[in-house]
């Protein structure tokens, strides 16, 4: 009896352990296209922020209707295995910086805003009263403003430098087609060697843009 119990116990344990061993056979990976696209983990990855660390832009408040952005666009980009630098972003020449509330502007249909009527339309888009002293109409009073290859012959404004004199950059206004109700585009040329901004710093660009009540989200673009 004891012998039979011994054998039954051994068999039971063997089956259990063998079953466990079989169940724990590791799954095989699944090669994909051309046998090499083997997924190497789950699909959950950390949310990534953007990478603007090599591009410095800063903002400052001028009036309740206007925001100023200034900064540098030079920098280097390190890629590769640490000891090698294959790309140096400082070799990239930037022509102009643009800002638009539209995240997806149609760059093939940019038209300069120059007439009084067009400026008043832009004031309305931002919720400004065009007769206010700091409206777009009464601020962007310059003419023949040009930025990069996209804007020319536009109305514009020249923000001051730290001495209170007209600074080195013009901010030009243009119109783009797009889905946003605020179809404005603002641009200024980049001065690679730098110049003095309103705060006395030597920077490569200075740009002022209108902001609607409650804030306006702007997207920034560099033209190379």
């Amino acid at each position, binding site marked *: 009896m*004891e012998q039979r*119990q*011994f*054998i039954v*116990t*051994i068999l039971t*344990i*063997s089956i259990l*352990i*063998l079953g466990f*061993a*079989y169940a724990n*056979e590791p799954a*095989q*990976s*699944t*090669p*994909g*296209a*051309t*046998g*090499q*696209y*083997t997924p*190497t983990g789950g*699909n*959950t*990855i950390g*949310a*990534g*922020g*953007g*990478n*603007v660390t090599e*591009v410095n832009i*800063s*903002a400052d*408040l001028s009036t309740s209707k206007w*925001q100023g952005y200034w900064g540098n666009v030079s920098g280097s*980009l390190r*890629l*590769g295995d640490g000891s*090698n630098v*294959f790309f140096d*972003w400082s070799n*990239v020449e930037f022509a102009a910086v*643009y*800002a638009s509330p539209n*995240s*997806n502007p*149609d*760059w093939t249909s940019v038209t300069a805003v120059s007439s009084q009527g067009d400026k008043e339309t832009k004031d309305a888009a931002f919720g400004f009263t065009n007769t206010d002293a700091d409206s777009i109409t009464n601020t962007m009073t310059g003419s023949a403003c040009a930025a990069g290859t996209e804007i020319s012959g536009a109305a514009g404004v020249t923000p001051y430098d730290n001495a209170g004199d007209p600074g080195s950059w013009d901010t030009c206004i243009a119109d783009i087609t797009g889905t946003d109700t605020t179809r404005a585009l603002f641009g200024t040329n980049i001065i690679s060697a730098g110049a003095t901004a309103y705060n006395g710093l030597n920077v490569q660009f200075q740009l002022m843009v209108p902001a609607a009540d409650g804030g306006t*989200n*702007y*997207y*920034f*673009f*560099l*033209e*190379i």
Partner: protein
Amino acid sequence: MEGRTITSSWKSNVLLALIILTLVPVVSAQVVVNSGDWRDVYSGLQYASITDQQGYFVTDTQQATRILSRLNPDEPVFLITGNQQPMAGFRSLLVSRGFTIEDLRSTNAIDTNEELVLRAQPQNVIVVGDAYGYNAVSVGTYANKKQAGVLFASQRTSSVLEEISAQDVLVYGHIPSFLLETFEDQASRIINNQDRFDDNFALFELFLQEYPSQLIILANGEIIEEQLITGTSPTLFIGRQTVPVRVTDVIRESNIQTAVLIGNALAPNANTIKDRTGISIFIKFAQGRDQQQFALDLFNVPVPNPLIQVASAEYDATRQTLLVTYQNPGSIATYFSATFVGEDTIEDARPVFIEAGSYKTQQYQSVDLGEELAYTLLYGASPRSLDLIVQGRVDVSRAQIDDQSQLRVSSAMYDTRLEAFVIEVENTGPVDAFVVVEAVDVRVGNERVRVGSEVVRVPVGQSRQVELLVEMSERDLERNNELSLELFFGQRELSLVNFARVTLGFSVGASSALSWTWIVLVLFIAVLVGWFVTRKKR
């Protein structure tokens, strides 16, 4: 009687209306995704784009608060919340600000993707794989323009397509054959060139044929950004570290004049494109609000990460041959093309395959180029996508190669349990040998693939089984009548200087999951335990 009938009808109508109301979700006009899974983010934005809603995704706590300022307080929020959330408590924050919320809890990204497509009921559908993100990114703006839903391939794809009565189904990029077989018949068109660039170029051309555009978006399928899904221009991949020549060819042939690069990581590549083509390029690089500037809202997607390095270099003066051994330390197979510069320049004629974790020795007929060589390796995940680069220098040792290894392939079978070809290799030479086996042109689904093994040591006079992992369906096995093998072998692990090509038939079977070692070990443990149990009972 009439009155009762009317009452009954009225009650029925009210009941019906109530049922309909409970079935119809709250009509939202803005979608927010708070999930760490890129597929949730993609599905949410894609759903928003084809249902004419504004889409947002949370990347971190600070950015989440900025999203709040952009949401319309008068509209409900359709909130998709994943298992891992970039901001915990985001829902509570929305509630505290008075937003009406319709919730979708995403516990499985594929389920969520399918549910959103079922909700949107698009007539057009694009099916992509979800192993990596680049195919989904590649089709993003095309799907928006076409108002197509994007489905991640699964076992349920066929039924989802059937349920929404999809009229136009585009199957895009690599999809495992066992999945593809389940809905292939429902496809109106398949784009799969076994190369993410070729696929992207094909879709790019299709986009321009259907929706002519002068503006294009430049990206590389490694991030999700709003414009890559809600944009209305075709997206063109431009490479990560180098710009494949074909990219500039595609731009020239399409007569495009203007491009927008999303994010600044690829600025050098964009600059190269500008130099080569002269088109205007704008880099979307930041955003600003309330006197502050921020990074763009970006979400990283999984990307293949091929790796390659030079393991050693030897020069055999007798044979006037430079032998360079490469190692793939990564987890996916890689293709590479090497260039060595010394007194002369030598290079690979065509991209070379190297399996994950494996070695490969290339032999170059050459004069002695010196004791140290500068090299450049272009590499990538497929032979036509060498968009990565590594440069360095390697010492060249002197050697006289006298390799006596000899091998023979005894048999081949496909093991359905291992999901691998198992090749029996016999050492018929006088020395131990090392071997890498590769199977070429294996038909898997609609693709022809190359799969390789790791380095396997075969002692003198013995045989070893070499495994080539590749998942094959029954249909795939029927399609492959025989196996074409290439063997790279040698008596030194880092110098596989011999090459042989073999074609042979193979059997199909399933190996036992249990090895003899396991069985003996388990029996031994069982005897011990049994002995203890019976002894205790006595």
